[in-house]
Structures are given as C-alpha cells and as structure tokens.
C-alpha cells in the first residue's frame, strides 16, 4: 500500500523527468544567451544612464544627459535647448528607408516567390538555390559591387552616356536612393524565402476554386492569395525591416559620411564622437523600435494565423 502512491502515476513521473531533462538540454543555449545577449544588453542599458568620460568610456556617475541628447540639443554657449535636428533626421531616415525597402522587397519578392512556388516541384529547389547564391559572398563585397554599378563612372552612368540618353552622369551614389537600392538588394532573399514558404503551402485548388466562382485574376490575388499568405508577408516584412533599421555597412558604403542611418550614428558615438552613454542610449532607442515592430507582428498574426495552415 505504501509504495502504491509512488507508482500511481508512472506516466506523469516519466513526463516530469523528461521535462527536466529537456530543460537541461537547453541549458547551454541559455548560458550563451545570458552571456552574449542579455548581459551586454544590460551593460548598454546601464551605460546609457552614466556620464561620458573625457576621452572615451564612461564615468560612474548617474546622468540622464545621454537620453536628453537623443532628442534634444543644448547650446553650449547660451544654454538654450532645441531639438537635435541631426538625430531626428537620422532617425527619420532610418525608419523611412527601412519602410521603403520593406515595401520594395515585398513588391519584388511577392511575384518572385509566386513564380517559384508555381514551378514544378523538382525545379523549385534550383530556383531557391539561385535565390541564396548572393549569400555566398561577403556583405561588404556585395555592397561594393552595387557601388560599382551606380557610381558616377559606374556601369549605369557610362552605359546611359554611351547610348546618349544623358550628357552628365546622374548622381546616385551617396544619396538615400543608393542606400535603398543597396538594402533592397541585400535583404531581398529574406523577403522571398518566408513568402515562398507560405505560398508553397498554399493549396492551389483554392485559386482554381476562386476562378471557377467568377473571381478575376485581380480578385483572386486580393481575396484569396494575399489573405492566405499573410503570415509569410508579415514574417518577410519583419525580417527585412529589422535589419534595415540597424543597417550599418550599406549606408556607410553607399551613403557616404553624409547620409547616416542609426547604425552609423551609434558607431560614431562609440568611435570618433567619444560619447558612450549617448551611443548606448541610441542603441536602446533602436532596440525599442525593433521591439515595437515585433510587437506589431505578434498582434497582427494572433487570431488569424490559421490562414495558410490546412
């Protein structure tokens, strides 16, 4: 009678010990996460509330100056306060360019993914493989390749001059346009892959059923395909928008020193600007923007994620 209690729920016991074991399996990942992600993040957060050291680093003295300086600018001569136009411009440029990049990759990626998803099954892996080929090359090299194409003596300008469309080269390099082109090129696969994943699961007899029920091509796209691949659209948009916000190499190479984005501004504060707390505060700002984007993702996908799952 005594040991009946111990063995009364063998399945539950087994499950419990299995859960324990599984938890142990995730321990290395948790340790790495704590050491390499949460820890540094905490340091950055703490730094943003400290004072800047004279040459670099931080002085351990509480200060909200860094946070103040993210948005405001205090004149060192007359002490008046105004908005930090440069920061706001850069912030706005980051958000705007990331948004436009997301829209363009979506516009280009959607038909691409649809094309691949509608190929015969045995040809699809070849197309997917081709999509991933650019990943073989280093990001920096790919960005310089774009530079070669769009600079004043680059492929496009020389080509257009040769056929006599323009007399003088069009200034494309070191503009917002250049950054956008670069980011679109670099992040396009991140849009295509999740879109493809959700389109591949799409039951194409639904498309036929809609055609059969008098829906034109346009209506089929709007009423059937887009609602059903929405999770893919959102996932792709998030995957493009977030790294675009923090992009560093692309605006540095294609935007020159003038057209900065948030990533470049942060780098500047930790480097030449020698204002670590401001850099830390800007980092936290970027992180908050990313979190907001992710939160939006979670909220929009909740409740209608049954869309493409059959």
């Amino acid at each position, binding site marked *: 009678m005594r040991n009946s209690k111990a063995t009364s729920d063998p399945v539950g016991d087994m499950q419990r010990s299995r859960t324990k074991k599984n938890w142990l399996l995730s321990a290395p990942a948790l340790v790495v996460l704590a050491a390499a992600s949460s820890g540094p993040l905490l340091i950055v957060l703490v730094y943003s509330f400290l004072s800047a050291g004279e040459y670099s680093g931080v002085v351990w003295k509480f200060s909200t100056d860094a946070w103040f300086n993210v948005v405001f600018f205090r004149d060192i001569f007359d002490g008046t306060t105004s908005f930090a136009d440069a920061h706001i411009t850069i912030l706005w440029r980051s958000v705007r360019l990331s948004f436009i990049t997301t829209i363009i990759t979506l516009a280009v990626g959607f038909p691409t993914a649809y094309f691949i998803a509608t190929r015969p099954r045995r040809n699809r892996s070849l197309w997917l493989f081709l999509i991933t080929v650019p990943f073989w090359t280093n990001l920096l090299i790919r960005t310089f390749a774009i530079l070669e194409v769009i600079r004043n003596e680059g492929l496009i300008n020389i080509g257009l001059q040769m056929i006599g469309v323009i007399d003088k080269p069009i200034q494309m390099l070191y503009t917002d346009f250049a950054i956008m082109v670069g980011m679109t090129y670099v992040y396009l696969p991140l849009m295509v892959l999740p879109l493809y994943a959700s389109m591949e699961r799409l039951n194409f007899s*639904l498309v*036929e059923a809609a055609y059969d029920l008098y829906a*034109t091509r346009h209506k089929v796209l709007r009423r059937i395909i887009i609602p059903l691949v929405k999770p893919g659209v959102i996932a792709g948009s998030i995957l493009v928008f977030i790294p675009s916000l923090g992009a560093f190499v692309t605006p540095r190479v294609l935007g020159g020193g003038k057209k900065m984005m948030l990533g470049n501004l942060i780098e500047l504060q930790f480097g030449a600007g020698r204002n670590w707390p401001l850099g830390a505060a800007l980092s936290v700002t970027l992180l908050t923007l990313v979190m907001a984007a992710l939160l939006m993702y979670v909220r929009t996908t909740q409740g209608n994620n049954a*869309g493409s799952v059959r």
Partner: protein
Amino acid sequence: MVEKQGTGQENAETPLPAAIYAERVTKVFGEGKNKVLALDDVSLTIKENEFFTLLGPSGCGKTTLLRLIAGFDHPTSGKILLRDQDISQLPPYQRSVNTVFQDYALFPHMTVSKNISFGLEMMGKPKDYIKKTVSDMLALVKMEELRDRRTDQLSGGQQQRVALARALAPRPQVLLLDEPLSALDYKLRKEMQIELKQLQHDTGITFIFVTHDQEEALTMSDRIAVMHLGRILQIGTPRQIYNQPAERFVADFIGRSNFLSAEVLSVDGRRARLKLSSGREVSTVLPDGREPHGIVTAVVRPEYAQIAEGADDVGELQGVLENIVYLGTDTHYHIRLPDETMFVTRSQNQCNVTEAFNAGQSVSVVFKPEAVQVLRS
C-alpha cells in the same frame, strides 16, 4: 422501352441546345519526350438537365475533360460548346459552370456562409439577393446552424455540403463534380449518392460527375460515358452499359464478365446466330452498330448464367467445377471449360438449402441466348 444504343456520338433530337457539346476534343500535355495524350479525339453531347457521369480508371482522361469544361485547361484542338456558345478558350470566370472539387477547396479564411456567397459577390449580385440565396442554399444542404463556422471545423460530410452549396449558389448552367464522394466513408457515401441525385432533380441543373467507382456511376447516372486511355469507349444508360457493353474493357471494368470466343454463323438484321466453343448454337440480339463476322468475343454476366448438374447436352457449355466461393448473399461457381478458360456463374443463396455441388465434378452452364452479348471488334 427500347433504348437507343449510344456508340460515341449521338445527335440529340431535343430542340434545346445541348448543355455541353464537345467536338473532337484533343488535349496534349507536355512537349517532346514527355508528351502525354490525355484526351484523344473525344466527342460527346450532354443533354440539358441530365445527370451525366464520366467513368473510368485513373489516368483515363475523365478529370482532364472535366477541367477543360471548367476552363482550368484549354483543348489542344477541337471545341467545347456550352448551350451553343463556344467556351473552349474562355477563362473559368467567364463561363456559367461551377465545380465541386475532389478536396472541396473551401476557403479556409472564410466562414461557411462567406464561402457560399463568394461566387455571388464576384458576380456583383445585389446584397439582398446574396443574403436570400445564401439562406436558401444553407437550407438546401441543411447547414443553417453551422453558417458562421470556419470551414476547418467541419466534418468531411459537412465540408462536402458546403462545397455543393457554394458551387450551386450562382445557379450555373452546368455543375461539375470531380469525385466528390471519394473522401467520405462508405455509409456517408451511400447517403450522399441518393442526396446528390435528389439535388440534381430538385435544382434542374445539368450535373457532370466524374468517378472511378462503377457502382456509384450505375446508381446515380442518367447516362454514363466509359473512358479509357483518353478515349470514350461507350456512352449509354446504366442498363445499356451493363447489359450491352460495347468493348471488352467496358465489360471488364463494370461488373464481372465471362468472355467467350464464338463463331458468327449468320446475321439477320438485329439477330445473329453464334456457334460457341462447345459446339452449341445460340441466336442472340445485336445492339446497334455491331455487324459481327468471323470469330468474335462474346460476354456473359455471371448472374445471367446458371450452373446445372452433369452430363452432355444439358446446357450451353460444359466444364469441370473447380471452386465454390460462398459470399453470403450469393455463391460463385468457378467452372473450367475444355479450352482451359474459367467461367464464373453466380447463384443467389436461398435459406435452408445445402450446397448441391462438389468441386471436381463435371457440370453444365445454362444461360438464355439473350445473355450472350457480342462485343465490337
């Protein structure tokens, strides 16, 4: 009633235009080495308000023909008329034909009533009309209570009803059904067969039903087209198809058959005199379009033949009883004929009757002369 035997092409004498008229339709998929001839010079007429079935094994071209009528594919050559209008090259959304898909293809992001109203919305019908029609359709398929359910919360049978209601709501001139019952279990399938037939009768819409299930085809159809390798072998009522199969494939695919080779002695109008392998002569009725001569293949259905005790000259054929297969409702006797072919007879079982035959004994086979059907050679 004498039924006209159809042998591929039929000219309906009704004044109404045919619901569907297909003229020499050929469909080729792929190119070069991978070329597949899915439909080979198919012609047929489907009458208004008819329950018409395309029957055949998988790969026979029945689904291809259905998809050509629906507009998902277009014929390589030939044309298809819908009430005298050439629809061969029209997209699916410009023809008054709706489809019930094999996997139902219900829109998973819409409720039951949204699924049903989809076609009407796309046609631009007024809101009141849509509302009323959806209610009517829900009532027709007895799904009123589930109108706001998502379609993935429905059972197979319920999904089937929604798919039907969705396809019927726009009141198409022709409804296409692509093996819609194949995913249902046996009992539900039997119920739906009756219900579909009733629905066709009530709505007065022409149904074109695709199936590989011969029993389903015989139960539901006004007429059946038997297809094989992209061709239509025979068109006729279930009775014609069963009792007067035109070709060996038809006789073999639908029901069980005994094939006999026979010599044609004489043909006199619709009657032919045959000499069977046993030497026995029978005189049988010929359906239209068959003018046999020389050695022909004839078919006898197992249930139209009876086993008889022993000796010579009793029945049409003689042989040795090899197997007795008891099947509850009836018993099959496998009889080895002198030319080594097997002949099966079927007898319905009576209560309290013990088996009168023993394996190994010599027996005769008895059948009426009309039971012998000469196949088209």
